[in-house]
């Protein structure tokens, strides 16, 4: 093989020499023949002609000899490229349209692929990250929960499919010291956590098992980012003591840079402290306190199924042993990557499919252009065949031309993609994971290259085969460029247009459904007024604020000072707010049967709030009263519930009927409290949440045992009369005037939180709509192009019709009918395809079915209208045909 390649290369290099030899060889033959004929008595001239005749085509024989040597391939390629470029230059309009269309398709694909590659495909920054799995428990109703710490310990001891297993829990507090106060969030982690991930410290070390126990030394690990920013990358920080939540902690080590555990920018990666130190706490022993998150590393070669079976066996054993807490519970495992980016996957795959469809439409369009163009070149091609070019040769030439177009499209597309990736990153919601690994990298370039080649063949092959099949005689006879159409070509063009229309329809329906979902979501009544509200978190270090009274006094003073600021209308304090945070607690209603176990209690979102809370957020009062200043620590225990609570617990009753009833939260220490008011339901975690009822209690009536920890992390909810974020700095000033060491965290307008929950949908909807519009435009152009071409082809026929008395209207209708026939066929096929395909995106929809008849009908109508517009111009042109000119021009 290599020998042959060598011969070919040599043939290429010594082309001139070999050609001379070939000439020489054939001349020798002809001369010998001539001599033979002359010997038989022919004249000089006769003998020469006879020899040539008998030879049977010297030029062609030479061509074939060259071909046999393999030179041809390279020579022809170069020739085709030059020829192709020349033809493009002669008609730059065609080439420009084709290249731009392709660049659009290829560029969009390369850009979206870069995102898919960065988010879903690129390997994670841990050694053998594919062995990492996320573990969860499930409760009786099959819902996924965090893991109870004792269960985690049993899993770790009882399943040998895992090499290591680590647990973690969110941690948050305040760092103080010379560097100033700073609110930081991090994680409690087990010593095994680091081994599970396989990370190495950038400096110092991680925890020892001894430190990961109650009474172990106070050690913490800093994130690389925090080390850089707060400690100026000081290598001496290891071993130094820092003040965290008022206590002294020793820095054991520093994490590697860009530690990407559920997000490089995840705030919970700022620092790490040993989880095991908490294991003497009561809730760390309770099997119904689902408090830790678990990540594990499979042993090499162990499949996920085996690990699942082992954990299920452990869970079953625990269920038998502890029916109270573990009965009916189960386990759930999924790969870390799935757990991390899984939610983004459906939207990204949908976008990839959409953008792929756009490229297909672009290909169909260019193929159509090529077919039309080829029809104009039939004579030229026929001539080439007549001069000895084989069909394969002609196909090759046409393919070279389409590959040239594709290459142009690919190069320009890469430019589009580069720009597109930048735009996508700006547009991407914060909720899109791994955005930092999105770039136009080698794999994306390779993808683009492959796509370009594939595109070139895809849109070039069919026209090339079709054209080269053209009957030679027919083409030569029928004169100029406008020569007779062959039926095959017409069918092909129609088929392509129908496909384009169908694909556009599918994309439009998909985008339409997403749009409807978004619209439905925007119409959802969140139950509160998010405008002009600023929220911020006050986190009091525990050393300094040991008592609840201290905290309360500080908070009241902050509230008083902020209320005095200009631009502030109302200030309230709360343990959380809608779209921010809320505690999920089980509750009991007085007089209702006690469930078998505490975990079966119904859940509610619980907030402890100051009296202004509901007025600040514009939450409606439906019955009774709001929380008042008079609801103090020692006054009767009261609660507000929302109408969802009433609906669930008192079906058919009016809000008023709930007043006077008593409820209490799950814990034994919680007091019974009287329902004194019913307010409107608030969407707590997102517009699309199904929701849990809400229970509100006065912040002054926080249960003693949880008062301090709750009061150390209260949210300030401020209704403003100016743009809310403009108050961030004045408020910070007031707080730090009170306590220099007091950092402010999570300073955001409430509207920002709402937008955060909408952003992922907005992102995929915007892109899908953009792609659908591109598809629609391309489809319309395709339809227009084919009709224009047909009208041009049928000028003579139309002329005859007009000459025979057809009216303008008839001609107009003729063309419109043809175009709309194609459009209708496309719409019908598209509707069928949509019915089959939109089901796949149902997880992305809200409040609209995947086969929503309204959307389908509307989109079909829209498409038909656009098609009608695309038909109009060619139809008008046809109806203006002057029979005299039409007949003369043939």
């Amino acid at each position, binding site marked *: 093989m290599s020998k042959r390649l060598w011969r070919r290369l040599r043939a290429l290099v010594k082309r001139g020499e070999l050609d001379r030899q070939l000439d020489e060889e054939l001349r*020798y*033959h002809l001369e010998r023949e001539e001599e033979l004929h002359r010997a038989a008595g022919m004249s000089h001239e006769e003998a020469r002609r006879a020899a040539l005749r008998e030879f049977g085509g010297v030029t*062609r*024989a030479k061509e074939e000899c060259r071909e046999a040597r393999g030179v041809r391939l390279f020579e022809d390629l170069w020739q085709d490229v030059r020829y192709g470029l020349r033809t493009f230059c002669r008609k730059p309009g065609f080439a420009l349209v084709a290249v731009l269309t392709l660049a659009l398709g290829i560029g969009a694909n390369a850009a979206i692929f870069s995102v898919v590659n960065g988010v879903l495909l690129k390997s994670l920054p841990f050694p053998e990250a594919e062995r990492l799995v996320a573990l969860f428990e499930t409760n009786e109703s099959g819902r996924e929960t965090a893991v109870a710490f004792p269960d985690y310990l049993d899993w770790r001891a009882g399943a040998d499919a895992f090499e290591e297993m680590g647990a973690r829990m969110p941690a948050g507090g305040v760092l103080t010291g010379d560097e100033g106060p700073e609110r930081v969030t991090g994680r409690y982690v087990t010593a095994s956590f680091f081994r599970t991930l396989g990370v190495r410290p950038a400096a110092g070390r991680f925890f020892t098992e001894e430190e990961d126990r109650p009474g172990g030394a106070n050690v913490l690990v800093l994130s690389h980012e925090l080390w850089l920013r707060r400690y100026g990358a000081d290598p001496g920080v290891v071993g130094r003591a820092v003040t965290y939540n008022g206590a002294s902690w020793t820095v054991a080590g520093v994490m590697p840079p860009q530690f990407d555990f559920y997000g490089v920018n995840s705030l919970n990666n700022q620092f790490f402290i040993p989880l095991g130190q908490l294991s003497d706490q009561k809730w760390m022993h309770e099997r119904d306190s689902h408090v830790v998150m678990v990540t594990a590393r499979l042993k090499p070669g162990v499949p996920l199924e085996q690990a699942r079976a082992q954990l299920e066996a452990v869970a079953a054993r625990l269920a038998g042993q502890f029916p109270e807490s573990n009965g009916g519970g189960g386990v759930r495992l999924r790969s870390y990557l799935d757990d991390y980016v899984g939610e983004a996957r459906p939207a990204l795959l949908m976008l990839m499919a959409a953008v792929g469809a756009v490229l297909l439409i672009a290909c169909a369009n260019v193929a159509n252009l090529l077919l039309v163009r080829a029809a104009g070149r039939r004579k030229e091609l026929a001539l080439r065949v007549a001069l000895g070019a084989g069909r394969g040769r002609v196909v090759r030439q046409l393919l070279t031309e389409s590959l040239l177009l594709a290459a142009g499209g690919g190069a320009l597309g890469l430019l589009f993609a580069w720009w597109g990736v930048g735009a996508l990153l700006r547009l991407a919601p914060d909720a899109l994971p791994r955005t930092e690994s999105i770039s136009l990298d080698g794999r994306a370039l390779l993808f683009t290259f492959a796509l370009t080649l594939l595109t070139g063949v895809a849109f070039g092959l069919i026209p090339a085969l079709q054209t080269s099949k053209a009957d030679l005689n027919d083409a030569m006879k029928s004169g100029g460029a406008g020569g007779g159409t062959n039926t095959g070509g017409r069918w092909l063009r129609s088929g392509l247009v129908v496909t384009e229309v169908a694909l556009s329809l599918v994309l439009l329906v998909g985008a339409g459904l997403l749009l409807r979902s978004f619209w439905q979501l925007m119409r959802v009544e969140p139950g509160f007024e998010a405008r002009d509200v600023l929220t911020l978190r006050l986190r009091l270090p525990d050393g300094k604020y040991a008592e609840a009274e201290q905290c309360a006094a500080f908070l009241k003073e902050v509230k008083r000072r902020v209320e005095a600021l200009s631009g502030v209308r109302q200030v309230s304090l709360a343990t959380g707010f809608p779209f921010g945070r809320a505690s999920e607690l089980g509750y009991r209603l007085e007089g209702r049967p006690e469930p078998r176990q505490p975990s079966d209690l119904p859940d509610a979102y619980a907030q402890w709030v100051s009296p202004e809370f509901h007025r600040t957020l514009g939450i409606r009062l439906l019955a009774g009263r709001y929380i008042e200043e008079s609801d103090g620590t020692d006054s009767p225990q009261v609660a507000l519930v929302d109408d969802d609570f009433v609906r669930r617990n008192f079906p058919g009753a009016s809000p008023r009927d709930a007043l006077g009833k008593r409820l209490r939260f799950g814990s034994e220490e919680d007091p019974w409290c009287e329902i004194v008011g019913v307010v409107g339901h608030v969407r707590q975690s997102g517009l699309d949440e199904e929701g849990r009822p809400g229970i509100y209690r006065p912040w002054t009536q926080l249960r003693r045992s949880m008062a301090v920890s709750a009061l150390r992390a209260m949210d300030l909810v401020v209704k403003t009369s100016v743009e809310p974020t403009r108050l961030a700095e004045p408020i910070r000033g007031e707080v730090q005037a009170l306590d220099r060491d007091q950092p402010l965290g999570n300073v955001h307008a409430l509207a920002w939180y709402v937008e955060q929950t909408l952003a992922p949908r907005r992102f995929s909807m915007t892109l899908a709509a953009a792609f659908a519009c591109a598809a629609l435009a391309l489809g319309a152009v395709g339809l227009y192009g084919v009709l224009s071409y047909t009208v041009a082809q049928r000028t003579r026929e139309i002329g005859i019709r007009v000459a025979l008395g057809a009216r303008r209207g008839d001609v107009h209708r003729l063309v419109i009918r043809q175009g709309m026939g194609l459009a209708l066929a496309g719409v019908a096929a598209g509707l069928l395809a949509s019915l089959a395909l939109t089901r796949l995106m149902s997880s992305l929809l809200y409040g609209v079915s995947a086969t929503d008849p309204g959307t389908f009908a509307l989109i079909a109508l829209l498409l038909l209208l656009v098609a009608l517009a695309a038909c109009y111009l060619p139809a008008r042109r046809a109806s203006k045909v002057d029979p005299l000119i039409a007949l003369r021009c043939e």
Partner: protein
Amino acid sequence: MGLDKRTDLLQQGTLELLVLRLLRTGRLNGWDIMQRIRVVSGDVLSITPGALYPALHRLEERGLVKAEWASSENNRQAKFYRLTPVGRRQLEAERETWERFAGAIEAILRDA
């Protein structure tokens, strides 16, 4: 290529086999081979130089024959072809195949 493409393909193998057979006894130039084919096959196989030369070049490209320039009988430079060892093996193999094929055809024709 023209309409005779199909017949070309059918004959191509035969022609190449024939050329290899002729070269078995020694080196020959294109014209020599042409004359001998005429003698051997009479007018049964209508082989033109236009088909022969590409066939020779194909054989050369495949390494079955080797070409060299030398003086011909009338003292002029001509391109001579000679079997390579690979070509010799190929000839044996092809001949066997051919004989089996021809034998089968003959048997069928006899029976019919």
